[in-house]
């Protein structure tokens, strides 16, 4: 069916029904963009801050992923000499008398730890929600900027500072922290426990405290902006799902990150003030410590009270982005908009009631474990509602299979695959076999690692035109998608089998376990695919920076024929986003293929004879 295209004159609509907030009347020079530093470095413009978050996130993604490539080489090829990488890693490659170089065991643990910390916090929290919350919240709710541009700038710079401290810790002579990204005591509490537990752990803690400050400053701003600065007509039920997801993500962050800070506070006291919150009856190097009365499990409770909501802090923005991209590029309203919002909210609520499913094997009372099993399994309900709605949105749509859409569909695929294994792991009985195996590694990499990355890529391909006024190269984008999608499944699918057989995660090598020797080839296969998939990402990075300067130029304001407000701004919006009036909103953002019109933007007042209006 040929759909009519509504003839929309944005400029005219903005002039006639927009809100004149006199923004440009008292315009005494633009303090935001007056010189190089205020425009590109200490910028208070939300769009520039979004780009800063994105590019810093990409920097960390390369480092974090490169680390995984190095330890995958150890896991896939434990006997091969790694002398060739000695120029980069220096003393962490130990060369024996025969000239064969091996990865130092402490450094293997440090790599695993840093890989987790960097990807979870710096890439998938700051790089994902930092980027898109900043870019999209003001643009999609019709605001000039965030509620407090100053706090917003500070949020980025605290993140930057956290990054600098973490980066420094990579170069400390005793190595970065190596006790796992969860930093359980006593390894994290006793500086003498391992080489990375000294200076490396101190820097790790300092870095993460800066990071939490960044998340809190950002979150305060996102919530305040969404609740206070929506334009006229933009009721909560007319918010795009992206904004809903960023909003609820910020709420989760504000409630859970402070708990992590409290856990860290007690950890710092144990490390430097001689308290025993997490320590009791410990022997180290044959010597008894005089710490008595503490409990390491206490730390686990505090950590996972953040840790579990954290996985939703990572995945909810990806869900929001995928919803928006799927709806726009299948030219259909999102299926079950309110159900989507309620699902996001109930996932957020439930995320606070399930933390102890990370601790089933910590010796907790099995009756208490039951409580956590039930709430964990209930999360499958809103998750399934979302998956059903995404697929229903695609059903019968006029799908455009561009890179953004492919990544959004890839996100749904990964979320299903990873979500299903979550149902296994959520059972405390099955967890007796599965805990700390590669099954867990496969589960969370697919459901929150790869899925969140795919959601982020969908967002980057979709909103790159808004960020830089140019398109990313589509051919490279599709190559990037198929390579990443196939690579990710080939890496993580086999890990389920390895994990079912009981192969533990975090081990340096398995040569003393005869029963695991059958997986040697599978491990080699995973490593080879991981290396290929890593180098494939460099295509994306090249595409990103090349397209920023030389990509195909955007020539119309609304290249995707999307309904949301960011596409009513100029192609490259300046500070304040709209040169004249800010738009008023007359409908929800998902009027696609309605009443014979291909799309009806949110700024369009009700049309004569239009059917029910949202």
């Amino acid at each position: 069916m040929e759909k009519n295209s509504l003839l929309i004159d944005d400029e005219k609509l903005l002039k006639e029904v927009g809100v004149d907030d006199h923004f440009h009347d008292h315009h005494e020079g633009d303090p935001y963009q007056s010189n190089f530093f205020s425009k590109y470095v200490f910028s208070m413009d939300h769009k520039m801050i979004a780009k800063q978050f994105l590019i810093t996130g990409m920097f960390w993604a390369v480092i974090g992923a490169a680390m995984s490539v190095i330890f995958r080489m150890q896991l896939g090829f434990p006997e091969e000499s790694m002398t060739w990488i000695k120029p980069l890693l220096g003393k962490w490659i130990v060369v024996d008398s025969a000239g064969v170089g091996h990865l130092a065991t402490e450094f293997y643990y440090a790599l695993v730890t840093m890989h987790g910390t960097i990807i979870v916090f710096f890439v998938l929290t700051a790089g994902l929600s930092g980027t898109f919350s900043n870019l999209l919240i003001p643009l999609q709710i019709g605001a000039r900027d965030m509620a407090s541009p100053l706090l917003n700038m500070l949020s980025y710079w605290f993140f930057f500072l956290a990054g600098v401290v973490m980066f420094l810790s990579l170069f400390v002579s005793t190595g970065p922290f190596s006790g796992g990204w969860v930093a359980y005591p006593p390894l994290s509490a006793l500086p003498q426990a391992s080489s990375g537990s000294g200076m490396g752990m101190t820097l790790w803690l300092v870095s993460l405290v800066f990071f939490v400050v960044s998340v809190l400053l950002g979150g305060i701003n996102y919530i305040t902006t969404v609740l206070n600065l929506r334009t006229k007509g933009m009721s909560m039920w007319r918010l795009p799902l992206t904004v809903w997801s960023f909003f609820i993500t910020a709420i989760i962050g504000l409630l859970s990150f402070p708990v992590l800070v409290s856990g860290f506070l007690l950890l710092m006291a144990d490390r430097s003030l001689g308290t025993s919150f997490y320590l009791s009856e410990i022997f180290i190097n044959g010597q008894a410590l005089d710490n008595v009365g503490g409990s390491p499990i206490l730390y686990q409770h505090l950590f996972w009270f953040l840790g579990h909501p954290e996985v939703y802090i990572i995945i909810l923005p990806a869900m929001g982005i995928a919803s928006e991209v799927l709806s726009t590029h299948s030219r259909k309203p999102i299926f079950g908009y309110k159900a989507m919002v309620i699902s996001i909210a109930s996932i957020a609520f439930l995320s606070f009631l399930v933390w102890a499913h990370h601790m089933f094997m910590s010796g907790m009372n099995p009756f208490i474990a039951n409580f956590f099993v039930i709430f964990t399994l209930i999360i499958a309900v809103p998750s399934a509602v979302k998956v059903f709605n995404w697929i229903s949105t695609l059903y019968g749509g006029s799908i455009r299979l561009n890179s953004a859409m492919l990544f959004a569909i890839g996100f749904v695929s990964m979320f299903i695959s990873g979500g299903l294994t979550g149902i296994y792991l959520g059972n405390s009985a099955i967890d007796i076999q599965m805990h700390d195996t590669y099954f867990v590694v496969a589960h969370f990499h697919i459901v929150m690692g790869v899925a969140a990355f795919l959601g982020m890529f969908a967002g980057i391909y979709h909103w790159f035109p808004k960020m830089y006024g140019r398109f990313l190269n589509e051919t490279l984008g599709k190559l990037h998608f198929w390579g990443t999608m196939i690579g990710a499944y080939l890496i993580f699918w086999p890990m389920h089998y390895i994990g079912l057989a009981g192969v533990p995660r975090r081990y340096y090598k398995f040569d003393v376990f005869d029963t695991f020797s059958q997986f040697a080839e599978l491990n080699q296969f995973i490593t080879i695919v991981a290396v290929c998939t890593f180098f494939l990402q460099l295509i994306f990075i090249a595409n990103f920076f090349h397209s920023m300067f030389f990509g195909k130029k955007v020539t119309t304001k609304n290249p995707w024929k999307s309904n949301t407000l960011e596409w009513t701004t100029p192609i490259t919006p300046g500070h304040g986003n709209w040169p004249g009036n800010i738009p008023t909103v007359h409908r929800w953002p998902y009027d696609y293929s309605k009443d014979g019109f291909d799309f009806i933007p949110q700024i369009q007042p009700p049309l004569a004879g239009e059917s029910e209006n949202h």
Partner: protein
Amino acid sequence: MMESVHKDRIDYRNKIHPHKFALWISLGSILMMFVALTSAYVVKRAAGNWLDFELPQIFYYNTFVILLSSVFLQMSYKGFLKGKEYVYKYMLVAAFIAGLAFVVMQYKGWQALHQIGIDLSGNPSGSFIYVISGFHALHVLGGIVALIMALVYAFKLPYRPTYKRKNRFELVLHYWHFIGFLWVYLLLFLFTQ
């Protein structure tokens, strides 16, 4: 800076100033930190190996000091609104002094703990008192810095109850009340445990 962006929006639409709203949200975050600490206290206590002792009296007396300080600040705020410049200025000074007194008396409280043999690095039951009250005292110190800024405004600038200054004052006021009632919560928690 922010005023240049949103000034007019606030006039016609917002009931609550975004700064104040942002403050309330951050108070929620601060509350979560203390909820976490007190929950940790409950969990650790249930795990056994716990030393019971009486909290020194001075912590109870000190509660009156910080509540009194809140009352002074509220009176100062009323004075500010009603144009009673002297009430505004000198009640602000009184609130500031009471706030300082609270921190000093908390320090005395820690000394009293030390005297009954409860040290920072002993059984976690004692360490918790130090860490919880110490972390709270840090937040009080943050409030004292805000009070100093309010004092500078009060004594350096000519008295003018503008919307902007009222709003600034309310930020300090709400934070200070929050810190006071947070201490009441912490003390009641420690008392009932």
